[in-house]
């Protein structure tokens, strides 16, 4: 039986309107219909749909909120979108089949995973030039960067490793084995740990950034669900470092984890096949993309209750929120 969220969401939405949050723009990449949905975080309504390149997946935004970077995977390019006009104003030389990327903390460099070529491409945003191509394992996907900008981490889905890369030399310094199909990397705000999700392995490995060893492996258990359907993908950690959110794919839930104990405190039921997550800048809300049900879910971070689901385009994949 498929969980139905709409009933639940309706009742809780009434409660939220009492405490208005600042309005941010939420940008959702819709993999199937080649669009971005722009959603107002306060009204929780789609305000615009933008046509983009083919198979949009990874999406991020410049620190000043002026430019969106979007992986148009089947066009082998990264599109640059002006948030004021929502027009595509340029492209970046991404290498083939870009899927996910991460922006350096200083906002100057983009690190891109090229799935088809076993490469991480380093792009200088100002000159739009490729600075380096770093050979990694098979099917590179997840990209993370430490808060100090010194370490980049890439995960390779068939090699099953987290590759730690020195951001100045562009050399791999450590290869850490994790479970099957690692999809995503997220550093804790203090930079002490890198959390790596493994979609088929069904775990999140917590890697100590000092020793570069797995110090803990988080597992998930949901009554009534087969373990095979619990497939961790997106990971986000609150700015105060206390809570982590993990999207569990076809388990249709987001796990809430205490970063101190590594215990799962709650499973939040969202939509079908939940993959990526993003906080609003005020950290009051986290938003999930639910691919199969074509919607996104707003979750209240304080109560960890789903607030509302909003229908977007077909197969929503990635999500990013404007910083201001």
């Amino acid at each position, binding site marked *: 039986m498929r969980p139905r969220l709409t009933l639940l969401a309706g009742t809780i939405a009434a409660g939220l309107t009492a405490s208005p949050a600042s309005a941010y723009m939420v940008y959702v990449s819709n993999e199937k219909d080649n669009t971005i949905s722009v959603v107002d975080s306060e009204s929780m309504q789609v305000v615009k749909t933008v046509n983009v390149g083919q198979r949009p997946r990874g999406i991020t935004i410049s620190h000043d909120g002026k430019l969106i970077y979007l992986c148009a995977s089947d066009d082998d390019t990264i599109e640059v979108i002006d948030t004021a006009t929502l027009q595509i104003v340029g492209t970046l030389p991404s290498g083939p089949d870009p899927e996910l990327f991460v922006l350096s903390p200083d906002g100057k460099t983009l690190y891109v995973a090229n*799935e*088809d070529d076993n490469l991480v491409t380093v792009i200088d945003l100002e000159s739009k030039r490729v600075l380096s191509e770093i050979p990694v394992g*098979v*099917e590179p996907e997840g990209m993370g960067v430490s808060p100090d900008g010194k370490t980049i981490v890439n995960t390779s889905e*068939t090699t099953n490793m987290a590759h730690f890369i020195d951001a100045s030399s562009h050399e791999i310094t450590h290869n850490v*084995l994790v479970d099957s199909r690692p999809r995503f990397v997220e550093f804790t705000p203090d930079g002490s740990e890198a959390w790596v999700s493994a979609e*088929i*392995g069904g775990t999140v490995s917590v890697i100590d950034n000092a020793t570069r060893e797995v110090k803990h492996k988080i597992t998930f258990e949901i009554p009534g669900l087969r373990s095979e359907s619990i497939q961790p993908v997106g990971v986000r950690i609150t700015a105060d470092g206390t809570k982590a959110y993990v999207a569990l794919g076809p388990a249709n839930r987001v796990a809430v984890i205490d970063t101190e104990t590594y215990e799962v405190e709650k499973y939040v039921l969202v939509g079908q096949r939940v993959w990526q997550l993003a906080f609003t800048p005020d950290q009051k809300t986290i938003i999930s993309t639910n691919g199969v049900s074509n919607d996104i879910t707003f979750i209240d971070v304080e109560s960890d209750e789903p607030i509302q689901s909003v229908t977007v385009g077909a197969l929503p994949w990635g999500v990013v929120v404007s910083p201001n």
Partner: protein
Amino acid sequence: MVPNTLAVFIGLFIASVNACLVSAQEAAPASPTAPTAQDEGQQTEVRIGYLRAYAPQLALSVLDVPPRDEGVAGANVAIGDNNTTGRFLGQTFRLDVTEVKPEADVVPAFHEMAARGDRYLLADLSARQLLSIADIARDNGILIFNVGATDDVLREEECRRNVFHTAPTRTMLADGLAQYLVWKQWRRWVLIYGSHEGDQLFADALRRAATRFGGEIVAEKLFEDTGTARRTDSGVAQIQRQMPVFTQDLADHDVVLVADESEVFGTYVPFRTWIPRPVAGTAGLIPSAWHPASEQWGGTQIQNRFAKATGRRMLSTDMAAWTAVRIIGDAATRTSSADPAKIEAFIRADDFSIAAFKGQKLTFRKWNWQLRQPIFLGDGRSVVSTSPQEGFLHQVSELDTLGVDEPETRCVFE
């Protein structure tokens, strides 16, 4: 730039291995080791043999003629994947391919491969050929991965502890199809089967699936192979008249099931039946271990990688071989070792699993070392569905609703 050179080098390596194997040579291809900054001195090599029965085959449709390197190409792509991973650990993998004729004696070829030092053997052989080497392999400490034979007997009465099966069985394929037909409420079937051994075995699997999932076979008919040429210039006109007549007297039904592994008549059934009915089995809606158009669950990535390396689409035997080589590679990576004892122990461990673009982890049935796997149902162009279907439940794994389950198994390891 160094990183670019390396990427090109690996690409060339994959391409060169393929080029060598297409010509089906027996000598091993050169095995360059990729030099990287990550090298920590010593390289260890894992040698994998691939023993294959091959002769050119005809098919009713020229589109179905098996590619020259079917299976081998999948193993090669996995060798490339293993070597990319191996760079970080100082491990290299190589594949030695040997071909024999179908039904030839494979024992001499096997001994040659064992003498070369292959400790792992992918077998794309008939059941008889595979059984002729299984016990010799055991005595030589060699693990066999069956990537071709779908015979249930190899997992049942004739199971062997040293033979792993990454190819699905006929009963798994038939059950995957039957679940879908039952889910569709298309429960009344007629079965048309060929006169060769494989046809009869698949017909048996379909009969078993009917009993298991509540389908009803309302009529059966044998299509005798009278040895006619498979391709003739104006044969189409005759077939158009013959097939309706052949199916005219069958009791009313929802679906026509076809069991024709031998490519004698199956392709001629769809659209030519007496009454308009969908066709499934070895023609029409076909159950398989892989589909060349599957793009679900990261499938696009392996499909792109395979197409780039081989210039064609990936087929079921390619996927079974890819999976077998990846199982060995993953075990070598995770044990950080080329020691066969360690690799074997890793594969046999309770928590072993492998990812193979099928939406969930794949594990072995420990009672007969068959790899559990979803079954694709596809027509010629696209994937129609994937089994197990929703609602077919199981106390251990829903994948065990496909094929012979543990309580029914006749496998007893010595």
